[in-house]
C-alpha cells in the first residue's frame, strides 16, 4: 500500500472521528479560559445528542434534508441553556466547579434516558431517518490527490468544526471580548478593577461551552450513532477534555489534539493493512492518545499550563 493510499484511507476516517471532539474541546477551551473548570462536557454532549436525535425524529418529515442542520442548531441552543445550571452553581453560588460539572454529567444522562423512556416507551430511540451523509465537495474534490484525501466522502460537519476552531482562535486572541475572557480566567480581580464584569463573562463562556458541547454531541449522534441511548456518549466528553489539556487550552491546540486523536484511532484500525505497522500490536496505537495526554499533563511535552484562575470562584471585593 503506497503512502498516498494509506493517507487516503486514514484522513476521511480521522476527520469524521475528530469532528465531535473538536466542537466539544472548543467548548472546553472557552469555559476553562474564563476560569470555570468544565468536567461537565460529557453531560453537555449527552444533552446535545439527546436533543439532536429527538428533534430529528420529530421534525424529519417537516424539514426534509435540512433536518440535521436544524437539529444541531437546536441541540446547541438547548445545551447552552442547560449549561446555565453549571454557571449558576459555579459562578454565582461559588460551588466546587468539579462537583458541579460531575452533577451536570449525571443529570444529563439521567434526564436523557428518563425522557427517552417517557416519550418513546423504550430504552433507546429509533434510528433517525435524516442523519448527516458524507458528500464529495464540489470542485475541490476534483483536485488530484488532495481532493481525494480531504474533500471526498467527508462530512460537512468536519469542515464546520475546523472552521469554528479558527473562528474561536480569532475571537479569543484578536477581539476585545477574547481578551476580556482570557483576563477573567487569569486574574479576575485585575479584570474587575478594569471594569470587566467577571460574572457576565464567565456566564457567557460557560454558555458557549454548552452550545459547543451540544454541537459536538449532536454531530456525534447524527453522523455516527444515529440513535440515542444511555450508551451513545461514553467517554467522548472526557476525551475532549483531554484534547483541551493536550492542546494547552488553545483553540488551535485543541483542534490539533482532537485531530491527532482521530488520526491515532484510524491508524490503529488501518495498521493491519500497512506493511511496517502490521506487526505492531494494535493496543499501542489505541492507547497512544491517552498516554500522550498523561505525558503532556506530567510536563514531558512542553508545559501544559492551565489558566491561573481556573477553578477559583471569584468573590467580588476579596483580595
Amino acid at each position: 500500500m503506497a503512502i498516498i493510499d494509506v493517507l487516503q484511507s486514514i484522513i476521511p476516517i480521522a476527520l469524521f472521528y475528530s469532528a465531535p471532539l473538536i466542537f466539544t474541546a472548543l467548548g472546553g477551551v472557552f469555559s476553562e479560559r474564563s476560569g470555570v473548570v468544565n468536567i461537565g462536557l460529557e453531560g453537555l454532549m449527552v444533552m446535545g445528542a439527546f436533543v439532536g436525535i429527538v428533534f430529528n425524529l420529530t421534525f424529519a418529515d417537516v424539514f426534509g434534508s435540512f433536518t440535521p442542520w436544524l437539529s444541531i442548531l437546536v441541540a446547541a441552543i438547548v445545551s447552552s441553556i442547560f449549561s446555565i445550571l453549571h454557571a449558576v452553581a459555579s459562578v454565582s453560588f461559588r460551588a466546587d466547579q468539579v462537583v458541579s460539572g460531575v452533577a451536570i454529567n449525571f443529570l444529563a444522562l439521567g434526564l436523557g434516558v428518563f425522557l427517552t423512556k417517557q416519550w418513546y416507551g423504550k430504552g433507546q430511540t429509533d434510528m433517525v431517518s435524516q442523519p448527516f451523509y458524507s458528500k464529495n465537495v464540489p470542485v475541490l474534490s476534483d483536485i488530484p490527490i488532495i481532493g481525494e484525501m480531504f474533500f471526498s466522502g467527508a462530512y460537512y460537519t468536519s469542515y464546520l468544526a475546523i472552521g469554528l476552531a479558527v473562528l474561536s482562535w480569532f475571537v479569543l486572541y484578536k477581539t476585545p471580548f477574547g481578551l476580556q475572557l482570557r483576563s477573567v480566567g487569569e486574574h479576575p480581580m485585575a479584570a474587575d478593577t478594569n471594569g470587566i464584569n467577571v460574572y457576565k463573562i464567565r456566564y457567557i463562556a460557560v454558555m458557549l461551552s454548552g452550545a459547543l458541547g451540544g454541537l459536538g454531541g449532536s454531530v456525534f449522534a447524527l453522523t455516527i450513532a444515529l440513535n440515542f441511548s444511555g450508551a451513545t456518549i461514553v467517554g467522548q466528553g472526557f476525551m475532549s477534555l483531554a484534547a483541551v489539556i493536550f492542546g494547552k487550552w488553545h483553540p488551535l491546540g485543541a483542534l490539533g489534539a482532537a485531530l491527532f486523536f482521530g488520526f491515532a484511532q484510524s491508524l490503529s484500525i488501518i495498521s493491519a493493512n500497512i506493511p511496517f505497522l502490521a506487526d505492531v500490536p494494535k493496543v499501542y496505537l489505541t492507547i497512544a492518545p491517552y498516554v500522550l495526554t498523561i505525558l503532556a499533563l506530567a510536563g514531558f511535552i512542553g508545559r501544559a499550563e492551565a489558566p491561573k484562575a481556573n477553578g477559583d470562584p471569584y468573590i467580588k471585593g476579596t483580595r
Partner: protein
Amino acid sequence: MKKNRLLLLFGLLLSAILVLSACGNSDDADSADEGTDGSDGNASEETNDFSVAMVTDIGGVDDKSFNQSSWEGLQAFGAENGLEEGTGYDYAQSDQDADFLPNLNRLVQQDFNMIFGVGFKLAEALKEVADQNPDTNFAIIDSVVEGDNVASITFAEHQGSFLVGVAAAMKSETGKVGFVGGEESELIKKFETGFVAGVAAVDPNIEVEVDYAESFGAPDKGKAIAANMYNNGVDVIYHASGATGNGVFAQAKDIKNGEPDRDVWVIGVDRDQYDEGAINDTNVTLTSMVKRVDTAVQQVTAQAMNGEFPGGEILTFGIEEEGISVADTNEEAYTEEVDKAVQDWKQKILDGDVTVPSTDEELETYMDSL
C-alpha cells in the same frame, strides 16, 4: 463557643436522624415487602402454585434486546398458564450493577419459585443468592453458574453465525466479507469462528477480514472499522458488537446514500436488526443472527413448573432447540437462492453432517477438513 456547641449538637441530631431513618426505611420496606408478598404468595398459591420472575440487566425490559426478549418469554408463559403479572410472573429492573443482588434477594423473599438472571453480568450475584437459597430455582442466561438449583442457559451462537456466514458468502460479489467483534472473548470468538466456517463452507476462497473494536459501546470505532473494510472491497459485514454495531450500520447507510447502486450489507446480531438498516426506500440489513431468548426462557420455565427443572445443567439452545434463527425480513436482499443455501446447511447441521467450530483450534481442524 456556645454557637459551636449548638452546631455540634445540631450536627449530631442530623446524623442521628439520618442513621435512624435509614434503618427505619429499610425495615419498613422489608416488612412492607413481606406483607404484600405474604398475601400475594398465598393468593397465587390458591390458584396456581407456580410463579416466576426475572432480574434484568441494566438495559431494562424495553431494550429491544435480551431483557425484552426474556420478558416476552415470561409474558407468553404467563398468558399460556393463566398467571397474573405481578404475582404469577414479574420482573425487577436493575439500573446499575449494584442492583443485581438486592433485586435477586427481593424476588426470593417474594417467594417466586423460579428466578432468571438475564445476562452474564448477573452471574456472580446469582451464584451468591442461589447458594443461600437452595429451595428456589434459578437460571442464568448467557453464562454458566454452578449449583444444583441453577440452570445455565447458553446459546449455540456459532451455529447461527455459521448460517449467516453462508448467507454472506452467497451474497458477496467482491469475494471479501468482514467480521466486527466487540471485546475479544470466548463468547465473541464463537461468533467469529462460526461465521468464518460458514463462509468457507460455501467458498473457501472468500476472504474474511476480522477486527475487534475492543468495546461494545463505541459506535465511532465501529464506523471507522466498517469504513476501512468497505474501502478494502468488503461488501458484507457481520457485527457482534452491541452498540458499536450502530457505527457499522451508519457507515453502510452512508455509502448507500452516496452510491445507491453499490451493494453493501450488514448482518445484525442477537435480534432482527432490520429497522436499523432502513435508508430511503431500501435496506442494508441482509439478515440477522437471532438468539431466541424468549423460547429458552419459556422452555426452562415450563420444565420447572412440571417438576423437571434442569438444575445444575448447562443447557445449550441451538438450531435444534429453536434457540437460534436467521431473520428473513429483508425479502429484497435475502433472496430465495440465499435462503435455500442457508436451509441446506441448517439441515446438514441438524443431521450432524457438519460440526460447527466454536474455538480457534476447532476452526483450524475444520478448515483443514474442507
